[in-house]
C-alpha cells in the first residue's frame, strides 16, 4: 500500500520527537512513507472558529495534493497529529454530506487548477500500524520486549471522535493491544479518552491544568510507569506542566509522557537518539528491574 505523510505544523516544532520516532518506526518496519509535497496547515480548531468555508478549502487543498501525488488517485494520507487527523476526516465527511459546500470549495480550488474528488483516505498511524501492518508482525519484530512496564495508553479526544471508524469512540483498545504486542502491560484506565484541556492550557491555564491533572493523577494512582499518547498537544500538556501543577495544587505528579511511536521504537530496538527520547523532559525508564527474590511480583 502507498502511504503519504502529512506531518502538520506541530510535528515541525513541539512534536518533533513524534515526527522522528514515527519515521524511524516506519523505516524499521519497512513501510514506505513519502512526505506530501508543499502541504499546508490543516486549519486546526482555531481556523474553524473564524471562517468555516476557508477552513474547508485549506484542508481540501491537502487532500487534493495527495490525490495528485499518489498517481492512481487512491491515496492513503497518514496524519499523526490528532487535530490534523480530525480536521481532515471532518472535511471529507462534510464535503460528502454537503454538496453545496463541496462546490464552493471546488470553485476556489479550480482557480489554481486543483479539483477535489474525495478519493483520499485519511489514516492515523495507529490505525495503519495496528490494522494494516498487524500486531502479529509487530510482535515478531520486537527485540527488547517491554517486560513488566505498566503503560497508561492515552488516546485523547480527536483521534477516536467523532468521524474515525477504526476504533471505539469512548473506550478504544488499539494502543492497548499494541502495547501488549510489544510485551508491556497496558493499565485498565477509564480516562483514556477524556480531554486533556487542549489549547486551554495556553489560554485559560487554571482550567486547562485541572483537566490535565485529573488524568495524570489517575494514571499515577493506577501505578502506571509511563503514559503514552498519539497527539502532540496532549503530550505537551501532560508533560510540560507537571511542575506547575505540583506547585499550584500541591500535588506529587511525576510521570514520564512519551509518544506511542517512541515506546514502539524502543521495543523494536531502535537507538533512543533516533526516537527523540533525549527531547523529553521527564526521561522514562523502559525496563523494569526484576523483583528481588521473595518480593511479591505486582499484579
Amino acid at each position, binding site marked *: 500500500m502507498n502511504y503519504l505523510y502529512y506531518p502538520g505544523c506541530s510535528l515541525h516544532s513541539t512534536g518533533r520527537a513524534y515526527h522522528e520516532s514515527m519515521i524511524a518506526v516506519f523505516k524499521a518496519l519497512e513501510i514506505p512513507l513519502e512526505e506530501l509535497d*508543499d502541504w499546508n496547515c490543516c486549519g486546526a480548531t482555531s481556523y474553524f*472558529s473564524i471562517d468555516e468555508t476557508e477552513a474547508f478549502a485549506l484542508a481540501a487543498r491537502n487532500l487534493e495534493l495527495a490525490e495528485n501525488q499518489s498517481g492512481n488517485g487512491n491515496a492513503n494520507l497518514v496524519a499523526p497529529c490528532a487535530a490534523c487527523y480530525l480536521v481532515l476526516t471532518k472535511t471529507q465527511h462534510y464535503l460528502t454530506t454537503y454538496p453545496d459546500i463541496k462546490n464552493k470549495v471546488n470553485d476556489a480550488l479550480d482557480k489554481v487548477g486543483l479539483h477535489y474528488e474525495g478519493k483520499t483516505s485519511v489514516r492515523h498511524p495507529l490505525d495503519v500500524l495496528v490494522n494494516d501492518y498487524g500486531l502479529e508482525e509487530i510482535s515478531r519484530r520486537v527485540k527488547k520486549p517491554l517486560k513488566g512496564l505498566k503503560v497508561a495508553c492515552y488516546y485523547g*479526544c480527536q483521534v477516536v471522535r467523532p468521524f474515525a471508524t477504526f476504533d471505539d469512540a469512548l473506550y478504544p483498545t488499539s494502543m492497548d493491544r499494541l502495547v501488549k504486542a510489544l510485551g508491556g502491560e497496558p493499565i485498565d484506565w477509564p480516562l483514556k479518552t477524556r480531554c486533556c484541556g487542549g489549547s486551554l492550557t*495556553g*489560554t485559560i491555564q487554571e482550567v486547562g491544568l485541572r483537566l490535565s491533572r485529573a488524568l495524570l493523577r489517575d494514571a499515577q494512582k493506577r501505578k502506571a510507569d509511563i503514559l503514552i499518547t498519539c497527539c502532540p498537544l496532549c503530550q505537551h500538556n501532560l508533560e510540560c506542566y507537571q511542575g506547575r501543577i505540583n506547585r499550584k495544587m500541591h500535588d506529587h505528579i511525576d510521570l514520564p509522557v512519551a509518544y506511542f511511536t517512541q515506546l514502539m521504537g524502543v521495543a523494536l530496538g531502535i537507538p533512543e537518539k533516533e526516537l527523540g527520547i533525549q*527531547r523529553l523532559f521527564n526521561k522514562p525508564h523502559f525496563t523494569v528491574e526484576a523483583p528481588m527474590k521473595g518480593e511479591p511480583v505486582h499484579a
Partner: protein
Amino acid sequence: MILPTFAFIYSNNKHKTEKKAVVRRIKYEAELDHNFGEHIAAHAYGERLMSCIQCGTCSATCPLSHYMDYTPRKVIAMTREGFKEEVLNSLTIWLCASCYSCVVQCPRQIHITDVMYALKREAIASGYFPRRLPIPVLAKAFFNLVKRNGRNTESWLLVNLYMRTNPFKMFKESILGLRLLLAGRMSLIPDRIKRRAELSTILKAVQAGKGASKS
C-alpha cells in the same frame, strides 16, 4: 441578561443593612430573538439542533461543564429559544475544547461541538466576546498567521497571543519556551509553504464565492 429593576428594598437586620433589588427574573417572549435558533441551525451540521430532547447527556459527559456559565444542554435550549445575547456573551462557547464527547453520546445525534463553533463565529462576527479573553485572540492570531504563511509557527503564535492579552505572562512562560527551544522542540524560524500565492488565490476565491452567493 439585562432586565428591568422595579424597586429597591432595604432590609435591616442586626448585622447590616442590605439593599435588594426587585427584578423581573425571566425574559418575555417579545424580548427574544426568534430567528436565532433557525439561523444557527442553518450552519453545517446544525440542522438537528431543533430535535434536542433536553436529556442532559451532553452536560453530564462534558469535561468542562462545571466551569461553564451555562451547561451545553442549556446552551442548546437557549439557542433554540432565541436567547441570543446570553448565549453569545457566555463563556461556555469559549470554554468548549472541541473534545466531541457530547457529540458521540447525544441520543439525537446533534453535532453540539459544531453548534459551539457556529456560536463562536457568530460572537466574533457580531463583536460579542470579551476583548481580552485569550481564546478568540488566539483564534484570530492563528487565522492570520496561516493565511499568510500557509503554516503555523507555534512560537510566533504564542508571542502574538501574550502581547495582545497579557504581556507579563510572556515572561512567566519564557522559561518553558527556553526549555523547549533547547530540547529542539520549538523553532523561531517561521514555517512557510512554497506556493503561498496559490493558497492566497484559493482563499480569496472562497471569499469572492461567498460575496457572489449573497447578492
